[in-house]
């Protein structure tokens, strides 16, 4: 259950590992196929299916892993924005002067000395 939860949350990283394993298996199968025959014309299909497809899976694994990092960074940006929003809420609630005299047209954030 714990692994399923992890796999659901980190599906891209789990997919990357799976794609890596599949890629290496396909590469090994391609190698086995080419080593079984001494005719180049019979080795070419293995080169395409085993070699290229294996590399494709490895590339997919790399892309999935990097995209997982990008998703993490994206979530982090959202969390930062939420934190800023919460702080602004707290500041506005703490501000007891919602009205000001004529000419006091400075935004609240700009008049807060604590911000330096």
């Amino acid at each position: 259950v714990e692994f399923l939860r992890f796999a659901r949350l980190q599906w891209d990283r789990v997919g990357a590992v799976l794609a890596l394993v599949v890629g290496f298996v396909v590469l090994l199968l391609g190698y086995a196929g080419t080593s079984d025959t001494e005719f180049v014309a019979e080795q070419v299909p293995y080169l395409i299916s085993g070699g290229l497809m294996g590399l494709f899976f490895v590339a997919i694994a790399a892309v999935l892993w990097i995209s997982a990092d990008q998703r993490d960074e994206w979530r982090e940006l959202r969390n930062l924005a939420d934190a800023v929003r919460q702080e602004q809420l707290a500041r506005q609630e703490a501000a007891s002067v919602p009205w000001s005299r004529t000419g006091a047209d400075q935004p609240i954030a700009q008049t807060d000395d604590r911000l330096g």
Partner: protein
Amino acid sequence: MMSALDLRGDGATGTAEVPRPDADPGLVPAPPARLGPAPQRRYLTASSPWRVGHVVRAAVLVGLGLVGTLACYYGSSREVLLADQVGWILGALASAALFCLGMTFYLTAGFREVRRAARELTDDVSSLYPRSVTAAPSRADEAIDLTSLLDADELVAVPGMTRVHRRGCPLMRGKNAEPVGVAEIVNHVPCGVCLA
């Protein structure tokens, strides 16, 4: 108008509008801090960096690459001569190029969106927390009193050279520096290290 707290742009700021008291016309509502021209920030709403168009285009390129590779595998496996397989090999390489193109497009689109979001967040935060930047005092403002240094016998120069230095200047280390008199200093230029 989107207020400062309305980062998500959904109008949920958590604060209520304060009615303007009619009794005092001199009172005007203080405008809340804003996030610029009420932009709709994508990083606040989207769950992933990629847009649908990015995913579709990348999937098309990757799919073409995979299908092309499989077709080339099928075609090459039906040939018995290497000379007849060359075309299929080239086709497989072209398919691999399409595949790589799709993957690269997917990654670069993600990096671009994340960078844009980081830039937008920086803009938002800097507009919420403006800071006044005070320039560091220029060294030109701090005029060096050469006369007092001259009186204190602090200025030295290497005979034949054009620059005058303080006695402890690192550029004078190991050199045969001699004190500079009032008559000679007009022929010298202040050192850019110790007298700048």
